């Protein structure tokens, strides 16, 4: 219906927003993130200052299954959701009276998991008559950087995690252009698969990183540069090459140093990620490079990107580990941009597993 009368909820939200704008007081946003296996809630002030960031991790639960089980994750989210939110308020020393808006991840992610956070956010927004903001998970990862240092535009963000590998160009706040993304496995996924082949425990990324530092990249492995102009990524060929190397060696009765193999694999992944990032910086122009996502914790990637950015004289921002992995503070930080623009979601907000970033 086009010209319908606004609901009481919509009126209350508008009133609350106007009153806040006139007051000039700081804006406290409650962030909620449940896109995968972390139930997280956070209070962030003015998009920059983390007052609390509670993460109820399910990592131990999913470890036994060798990966995240969506149904199990969704069940834990619904058990933990209000507890986690309450903890976030308590740690921030706030009550819901001090919260001006609710920001929630509505995609991409596991649909059943997303729905729990979205339902909770909508319910609280409705009950309190305060704005609801839908946040894209990748935008959240990028905005984790703003909790560390102010963003300088234009910028290039490299987002790497278990589910994502994206190169994003931003010319201003809230504007995202995807330059490249993975055509098959995400970088973090490739790490997990290679780790499994090397019989390392799940999640394998940190183990590969550790082994890589003990070995030398002496085993030749391919680099998937794809077409000369492409900023896309592909890691499945590399993963297969690693598996073949292991397989061939075992057939010949030779042993392969896991340290050297890990180092060679990591060398291939980080070279492609870093060189494509640097090339994008040069082509599009950027005053800042941001590294985001869970794989930003990877030492090999951090070191290589730092070195190359140093050579090119580019400022690089890497958030601390606690803000790299999935958390609600980054969602609240990204949500603040929408808040300033008055861009709010309606009560029919849904969880969208394949939500595009645009």
């Amino acid at each position, binding site marked *: 219906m086009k010209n319908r009368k606004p609901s009481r909820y919509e009126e209350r939200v508008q009133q609350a927003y106007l009153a806040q704008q006139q007051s000039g007081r700081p804006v406290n946003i409650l962030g909620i993130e449940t896109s995968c296996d972390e139930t997280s809630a956070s209070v962030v002030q003015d998009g920059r200052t983390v007052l609390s960031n509670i993460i109820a991790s399910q990592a131990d639960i999913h470890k036994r299954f060798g990966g995240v089980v969506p149904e199990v994750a969704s069940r834990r989210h619904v058990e933990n959701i209000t507890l986690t939110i*309450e903890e976030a308020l308590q740690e921030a020393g706030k009550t819901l009276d001090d919260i001006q808006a609710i920001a929630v991840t509505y995609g991409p992610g596991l649909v*059943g998991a997303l729905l729990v956070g979205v*339902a*909770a956010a909508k319910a609280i927004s409705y009950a309190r008559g305060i704005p609801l903001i839908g946040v894209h998970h990748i935008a959240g990862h990028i905005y984790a950087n703003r909790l560390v240092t102010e963003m300088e535009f234009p910028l290039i963000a490299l987002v790497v995690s278990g589910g994502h590998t994206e190169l994003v160009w931003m010319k201003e706040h809230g504007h995202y252009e995807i330059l490249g993304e993975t055509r098959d496995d995400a970088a973090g996924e490739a790490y997990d698969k290679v780790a499994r082949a090397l019989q390392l425990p799940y999640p394998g990324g940190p183990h590969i990183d550790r082994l890589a530092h003990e070995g030398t990249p002496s085993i030749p492995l391919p680099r998937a540069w794809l077409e000369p102009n492409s900023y896309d990524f592909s890691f499945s060929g590399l993963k297969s090459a690693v598996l073949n190397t292991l397989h061939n060696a075992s057939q010949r009765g030779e042993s392969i140093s896991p340290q050297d193999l890990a180092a060679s694999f990591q060398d291939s992944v980080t070279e492609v990620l870093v060189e494509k990032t640097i090339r994008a910086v040069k082509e599009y122009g950027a005053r800042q490079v941001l590294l985001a996502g869970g794989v930003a914790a990877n030492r090999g990637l951090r070191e290589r990107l730092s070195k190359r950015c140093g050579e090119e004289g580019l400022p690089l921002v890497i958030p601390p580990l606690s803000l790299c992995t999935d958390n609600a503070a980054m969602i609240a930080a990204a949500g603040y941009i929408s808040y300033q623009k008055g861009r709010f979601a309606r009560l029919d907000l849904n969880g969208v597993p394949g939500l595009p970033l645009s």
Partner: protein
Amino acid sequence: MMRVLAMDTSNLVLSVAVVEEDRILAELTTNQQKNHSVRLMDAISELMDETGTLPEQLAGIGVAKGPGSYTGVRIGVATAKSMAWSLQIPVIGVSSLEAVAMNARGFSGLIVPLFDARRGQVYTGAFRTKDWAELSVVAEERLVLLRDWLASLKEQAGNERVLFMGEDLRIHRETIAEQLGEQALFAPATHNHPRAAHIGLAALGKLAEGGHPHEMVPEYLQLAEAEAKWLAQNPACGVKE
């Protein structure tokens, strides 16, 4: 006057109601199989406006806690507990099966609501009522093969009539008729949907018992498949539930 908001999204039907003491102020029930995540909050907002109810006027929230579709149950429970938590009021979970069975109050005989659970299984239970009194549980709710369930009902019912209820009867009606013959009755279409008003009134009666939002969890009646498999392979760890 205590007002309660109630909701059921545990299966394909969406039902929302606002009730007050012994009156139903408004109720919305649709069987359009639209996405509950998209529809639920708008339906609540509409009904609350319709009845001139502000969220802070609510004394409690009632919700169908399952069994049913895992996702559907979670949408209802997450919404209800989050709303109750932010309003600092109790949330009361009512069995989704019982919510359907309440439609048969006044029937003398065995009341058997059921939801299809695939692979020949159903979520079901058996209730009894007398002279419009509250339902009493005859057989605890469970996940069971329909054939086994019908066999055990036959023993339990003796000569009594058995009233089967629920939207999913269309799937299982033949099997039931085959096994129970004349003894089986089938509820008319008007009685097969869960009605949130029943949940609201049941919740009203239990508000004094509390019902802390943190403790409100769905009743799935079964483990997630991965968990069940894992437990089968690691029997020493036992079932924690």
